[in-house]
């Protein structure tokens, strides 16, 4: 995370706390750029098949971005929920690229493109899931948020409950129901 980005984010987080909606988008923009650069670096350098949970990137970004003492719990929560949204975009974008790539003849690919970052989720099609989740957001915002935190953010139910200020059992109930609905949506598309 570059220093400017770091400073920007700290300032933006403060704004966010004061309830400024447009700052959220700005934070996302910065995070997204940083995350892309960051993931690219890891992957390019290793040149081997490495798999890692996308959420590790969020954590890594987090640890590098903040002095552990500087931000309070609310800041952290803000950051985390924002980072997860970013993570989701990141994963979905790459999955889309991958799908697009499979339709393009290899000869038409640019020199570097085929060694780019690709995203996979075992069995689940991230793109379809993203679409279904977007539908869910319109129907039940909180429930969609639970899925986003758990699936794209890899957070435990305990942490999700804490962030959303609801009980763990509610998180679990909603999560179970959401999974069924989402998978049903995906199957029927």
């Amino acid at each position, binding site marked *: *995370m*570059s220093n400017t980005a770091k400073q920007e984010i700290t300032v933006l987080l403060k704004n966010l706390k004061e309830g400024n909606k447009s700052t959220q988008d700005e934070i996302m923009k910065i995070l997204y750029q940083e995350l892309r650069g*960051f993931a690219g*670096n*890891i*992957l390019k*350098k*290793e*040149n*081997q*098949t490495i*798999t*890692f*949970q*996308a*959420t590790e*990137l969020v954590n*890594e970004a*987090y640890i*590098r971005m903040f*002095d*552990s003492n500087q931000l309070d*719990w609310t800041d*952290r929560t803000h950051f*985390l929920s924002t980072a997860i949204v970013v993570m989701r975009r990141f*994963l979905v974008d790459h999955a889309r690229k991958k799908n697009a790539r499979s339709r393009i003849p290899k000869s038409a690919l640019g020199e*570097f493109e*085929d*060694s780019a*970052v*690709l*995203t*996979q*989720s*075992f*069995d*689940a099609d991230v793109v379809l*899931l993203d679409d279904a989740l977007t*539908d869910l957001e319109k*129907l*039940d915002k909180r429930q969609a948020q639970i899925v986003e935190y758990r*699936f*794209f*953010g*890899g*957070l*435990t139910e*305990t*942490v999700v409950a*804490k962030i959303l200020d609801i009980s763990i059992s509610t998180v679990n109930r*909603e999560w*179970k*129901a959401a*999974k*069924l*609905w*989402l*998978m*049903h949506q995906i*199957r029927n598309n």
Partner: protein
Amino acid sequence: MNSKDYQFIKKILIETQELEANKKQAYVANACRQKPDLYESIIQMLAIEDSPDDLVMETAPITEHVVTDEENKEIKARTRINQYTIIKKIGTGGMGIVYVAKQNFPAERQVALKLIQQNPKQQQLIAETQILAKLNHPNIATLYEIDKTENKQLYIAMEYIEGEDMISWCKSHHYSITQILQLFQQLCTGIGFAHEKGIIHCDIKPNNVLVTSIDDKATVKIIDFGISQLAMHNSDKDDAYEISGTPAYLAPEILSQKEVLINDTRRDVYALGILLKKLLPLQLPKDLQAIIDKASANKRENRYPSPIGLSNDIDRYFNKQAVSARKPTFGYLSGLFIRRRFMVVLVSLGFILTLIGAYINQSHLTKAAQTAQVEAEEISAFMTDLFNVANPEKSKTDAITAVDLLNKAQIKLLAIEQPTLSDARFMHTIGSIYTRLGKLDKAKTIIEKSLQLKHKYLNNSDREIVQGLIQLGLLDKNLNDFASAEKNLLLAIELIKKQKKTDISQLAYAHNHLGNLFFKTLQLEKAIIHHQAAIKYRLKLDDKKLLADSYNNLGVIYREQEDISETARYMHLAIIEESQYHFKKSEQLMIDAYKIFSKSYDASHYNTLTVATNLIRFYDKRMRQQEALDLYEELVDSFDENTHYDKKLALMTWVELIYAKNKQYEKAKIVQQEIFKLIAQKPPTQKHLHLRIYTLYIQSLILQEQFDLASQQVSIVLELSKNKLAKDNFLYLRV
């Protein structure tokens, strides 16, 4: 799907969670009688339950780098590459595939041969890497050669080490901390040696630190020295921002300062610190923890300058000398937990610190600072202990809340067989926190216990005992046990009066709460007596806020008695006291804020001016005009007329009035003329400011006893606005 249908489906999905599998279908059929069209979908959804599809989402998405054919091309055994014959592939690392190969010439030996992908800058690379070949150290794998084949295949031949990476080695050999540290010191020596030759490794991580047995002695062999730097040049794109290394071991400054790559020794020290952390168990002696902390400090200047310094500190640790890294703070121990599991730990940690803070506050009231300090340390040791029990990494459960911790503390405290006074005090602190959390029953139990213990150690009328009694009284009151509350509070008052040196603030506190208690039980006459007593004592004290509270409480009682004039009297007194509350503190805060703002923005920044204006008004209200004027003069040149026009006008208007009050009429006049010159060119953007300029001007004219001019201005003001505010101001001026 509409939201209504969705909520219907969701409701059924949740309700069926409780049912046995064979009862679900019937349940859905029954529930769907009004909405038969949804029946089919819901049954399909339920069929997903526990199927592989259901499990798919339980795994977070995986990001995977797919290896291209090019990268994957493995060279078959017995292939010749210059003087080397490939034996087998041993891994994929750094920038290409690594093989064991047999060197035929000049000597016959096994080497690790790394084949690097095509690269336009090969020549330069070869030259640079030759330098590395000069590194000759028992803990560094020797680099024999870097060259290319006729096909321009770049390769590096290195000493072949048959060993395990350091972490696996230590695990498989069941190393003790001491053994790990000794091995680690070998690593430090190797890296330190290279540093002296001006070579930074840049990619220290377990895979690059191998351990092998030489003459039955575990020996560290560092591989890939400086190779990661090659990877950087290896990029086809001419990208100056490329970063080489492995993320977890990369020093923060490497990631943050992309423009200038700082490849100094501290970068390797950071990676060593992280590696050491991974080698050692989580629970470490403080000194050792301090060493890791220092090595892996986020700020590079806080780290050891070299691996040798790190190794020396480990020596000191072995010799039980004070290590250079150790900082004697409690916070530092906890810092690590935060970094590891910030989500879970943060709350608990903050809580502990609050607890200790509260404790120190409590005992500082009664004790010499030093004794309090010693006790606080005992407490922090206790809490740390407790925290370790609650450490999520140890207990493997994810959640530990502040309340959990508090409960644990309570149980642990109550189980102590022979509790000391310290323990009793700590119980009191925990009781206070339970009180604040609204867990009154728990609070009462532990405070009673604390009080019981304190009776053993302290004089009966001791301040702490009284404090416990009052707190107990308050708890009783909130638990609606009014009789017991009255008894405890009265006893407290009685005891205070027996004190050698009566503690007035406590006395007032007790009376005040007794007053509140009687008010709650509607014994208003008694309530008045006690509040008046509280006021009597509080008048002797310096705390305006509490005095204001007492006046207010008394006012409330009179209001209940419908005695309007007495109500008004005390409410008014309350307001007066309240308004005097904490002036010194607010002044200091404003001054601090002003200093910080003018430093971090500049003198003409909006925020700076706002604080300055407030400060000037503050001085003015306290009749400290000279200070106000000094500040103004300090500021006057820094106004930027374009951006802070209104602010400037507002401030000037105030200053004009202050000059007038200070009887510096000439100066007031100058400022006033300046203002009028400005608003003639451009009126202030805010209308009310325009009015205020006039009203303040009038005030200043009155002060200067220029009544004619003043009344002229008054009519201007009235004309300027039909605004009620202006009229009010006008009326006020008339008076």
